[in-house]
């Protein structure tokens, strides 16, 4: 999947992303299954809402965590998230 920084991702309707208090992490839920996300994956997913572009998400993360080279890591995670079907581009 080739990611364009102008793409606007959204959580696919067949998956659900939410905070799980007892697990103390963000999770992705799908039919009869659950994936626990790492802290950084959770921070990326949390910004995916069908409004923010990939570029906006990267910049926001860089500002929030005072880091400036997050692009590669974010793109790498988004590739996985597109491939597994958790997210799709807003039409």
């Amino acid at each position, binding site marked *: 999947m080739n990611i364009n920084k102008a793409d606007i991702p959204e959580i696919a309707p067949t998956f*659900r992303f939410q905070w799980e208090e*007892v697990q103390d992490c963000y999770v992705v*839920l799908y*039919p009869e299954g659950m994936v626990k996300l790492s802290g950084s994956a959770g921070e990326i997913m949390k910004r995916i809402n069908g409004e923010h572009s990939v570029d906006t998400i990267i910049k926001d993360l860089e500002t929030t965590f005072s880091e400036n080279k997050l692009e590669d890591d974010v793109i790498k995670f988004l590739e996985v998230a597109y491939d597994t079907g958790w997210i799709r581009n807003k039409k």
Partner: protein
Amino acid sequence: MTPAGLETKSDLKPPLWLLAELTYRCPLQCPYCSNPLEIAKYQNELSTEDWVRVMQQARKMGAAQIGFSGGEPLVRPDLEELVQEARHLGYYTNLITSGVGMDEARIKRLKDAGLDHIQISFQASDEELNNFLGGTKTFQHKKEMARLVKAYEYPMVLNIVIHRKNIDQIRDILEMTVELDADYVELASTQYYGWSRINVDQLLPTREQLARAEIVAKEYQERMKGKSRIIYVIPDYFENRPKPCMNGWGAIFLTIAPDGTALPCHEAGQLPIDFPNVKEVSVEEAWKDSPGFNHFRGFEWMKEPCRSCDEKEKDFGGCRCQAFMMTGDAANTDPVCDKSPKHQELLDDVERIEKLAAQEAAHQVEAKPLVFRNMKNSKQIVKEAADV
């Protein structure tokens, strides 16, 4: 944190999965149903309020997935209300249904209530066999419902229970799932519990059939990569190591039977163990403190060859119910394991059934009729058990 390997009660993890068996009433009569043979005894179903309380308590502990199952959960008129409450509590909500009792209005109402996923079961890929196995005319309706599930943007999981009577149609079954655009396909080999256990002579596939089916399943797994996830597991009777049943007893699964009995798995009701009822205790008490849930936790209960086995942490000695059904003692090693002293008996039984299948195929013997899962047959079975 405690040192690795040290099990204390405070390490006990919460249930992740709540299986809500809302009812054992069902319009179908599948002879491989995993419900207990004694379905006729479960007349007192939990009320809406009971279910809401159970869902709240389990969610608070950490359960993230809820499966509304049965019997046929659509039989309950309060299903939408329960789905809405479950979704509101933050569960991922799964409906496990035959599709019978569903129509477009209800699919829409369930979507509005927040239902996340509908799993529809098919008995076979052709109308005649599907209807014969289900004991009712439902095939076209199921296909129609599967299309609607897709139209309403639910993830579509198709579940087809595989056994000797339909395994040779596996290519047609997979073609049907392609046509219906399924996201997930579960080719679920019949597991021999409940009704399927009394029909095992008629349902167990032969090794030859399994080998042929596996080739086709692999072909479709390859072909549908990225579009549809196809899961195919062979019956454990043909394995040498047991399944890690329920990921361990009382580890992540919590089943609530229609009458409120809390169980570590939906088959465990057949064991000679007392299980708590959520009408009398909270979900937390049932999970943490009841003798039933603690019965096979950890490794202390194990007998040989499990006790000294270096694989015990991998498969927990297999399935307690299978051990009970085949050896009379639920603490024994699951006879699927070739280290079990009873493994040879299982092999002999499989061989006997394969011979029977060959004789039937050659019309040397007439196939025994299947015992269909319905209240009439259940009452008869309960009565016969009482007479013994």
